[in-house]
């Protein structure tokens, strides 16, 4: 069995055995809360881009609405003539921040790639995460200089370990020995760009 499959099944085995706190989410796909904050909604049925809450959105299109943060090229031709959406200032555009990696690292290791970010965000905003954050702040305040240096060395080791894991993953992927279950090693592939190697064409 592939290593990634084994890890994925293992996580659910922990859930089945109730060996972990199942109230803590592993991954949340549900985007409804975030979608409500988006500046625009696109009606997949009518093909129109609306301001969020536009009254011209047909009721029958509600299940086919997608929240849109940045509509990209070509959107003016799709703009609803009634609400006339305009692009907000860049400062108002809420993107998905990717600064929660450290918190995620505490919970899940490399298998789920981008899930780490979301997991960390969930964890940090949870009661337990807030408590841990408070305790950490108190703990750090109470450390003397030598203790701080030890902590710093430990964190650097952790960082080095993550980098080493990623390097191994990249090497395996490049050599074609990856398990096919990890995220691709290079950004162009992640973004679905054509592969550098023409032999990968099908």
């Amino acid at each position, binding site marked *: *069995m*592939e290593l*990634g*499959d084994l890890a*994925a*099944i293992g996580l*659910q*085995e922990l*859930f*089945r055995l109730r060996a972990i706190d*199942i109230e803590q*989410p*592993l*991954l*949340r*796909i*549900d*985007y*409804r809360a975030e*979608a409500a904050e*988006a500046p625009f909604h696109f*009606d*997949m*049925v*009518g*093909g129109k*881009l609306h301001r969020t809450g536009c009254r011209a959105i047909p009721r*029958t299109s509600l*299940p*086919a609405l*997608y*929240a849109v*943060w940045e*509509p*990209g*090229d*070509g*959107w003016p031709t799709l703009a609803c003539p009634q609400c006339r959406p305009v692009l907000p200032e860049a400062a108002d555009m809420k993107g*998905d921040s990717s600064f929660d990696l450290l918190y995620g690292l505490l919970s899940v290791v490399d*298998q*789920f*790639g*981008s*899930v780490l970010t979301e997991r960390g965000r969930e964890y940090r905003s949870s009661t337990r995460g807030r408590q841990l954050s408070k305790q950490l702040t108190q703990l750090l305040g109470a450390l003397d200089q030598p203790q701080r240096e030890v902590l710093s060395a430990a964190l650097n080791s952790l960082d080095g370990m993550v980098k080493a894991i990623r390097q191994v993953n990249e090497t395996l992927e490049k050599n074609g020995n990856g398990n*096919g*279950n*990890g*995220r*691709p090693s290079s950004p162009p*592939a*992640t*973004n*679905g*760009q*054509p*592969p550098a190697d*023409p032999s*990968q*064409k*099908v």
Partner: protein
Amino acid sequence: MNRRTIPPGGVPAAPDRIDVLIRSHRRRVDRSLKPLVLAHYPGMMAPPGLEYAKMIELSTKMVMVGRACVLIGGQIFNRRHLRTAALYGACCFLGDSFLDDFGEDAAHEYIQRYELLLTKGWFELRNDRERLFYVILARLFAERDILNPLLRQAIFGLFLTQKRDVELRATTAALEGASRRTLLRRLRECARDRSGHAITLLAHLLNPHLPLPCAAAIYTAGSLIMHIDDHGDCHSDRYYRRATFMNQVRDPVRTLGGIYRRGVEQIRRELPPSLGRDLMLAFLHRYHQTRLRKHRLERGRGGTSWRVYE
């Protein structure tokens, strides 16, 4: 004709060349999925292996549609696209089986468990089928930044439509008494959204940067596929008391013809000319024709046949 005569990343336009492309993709899909099935749910391959064969056909269909979407986005279809689309087809096949093949109670229970998976990430694996489904889902999630907002909305939109579909089945009798028009409208919207979200998810799994102006036409293509599919499954769905828009309308062939014509017109109008658009239209034409034929063939078989159709 061998596969070397197919333009790299492109599509031959003639119907016989579409045949070649389908056959080629079917072989690759089989190579991609077989090891997974053998590792996690070998029972699915037991003779005569009809369920596995059906899964391969659905996955091949997803690869064809996925290929069209990749080309519409101006990219070259590569191995990773094929692997992702094949996984997605298998995932849809197994997910649909939980909803359709084990009775209403099982369908309701699956909806609850799947909701937990999408809101918390937890899914208890109870048997080999569920294990295969979960492994495929995990691999699919690892292929892409699954927390991309559009992907999350497509996944959850698809789930909400499936939930609506299962609830609608349970209340169909009551709705029939209230208003046939209401029933038809709800069934039609449900079919529209189920495959509309499904194709949106597939298209963005393969190309997260698909331009917004293409989105509505692709959604329509998905809806059209659902109506065509439901017409092909009409007798089976009726036998198992699954109400769909296509098995409730009085003249399904004529109704489907109208939906098909309008859908194709929208796709032609809204998608810029490309090999991808041509492939999508060629695939829809072929699928429409084969499902009309399936509907006719299945009429005399009483709705219980378990035949494998392309």
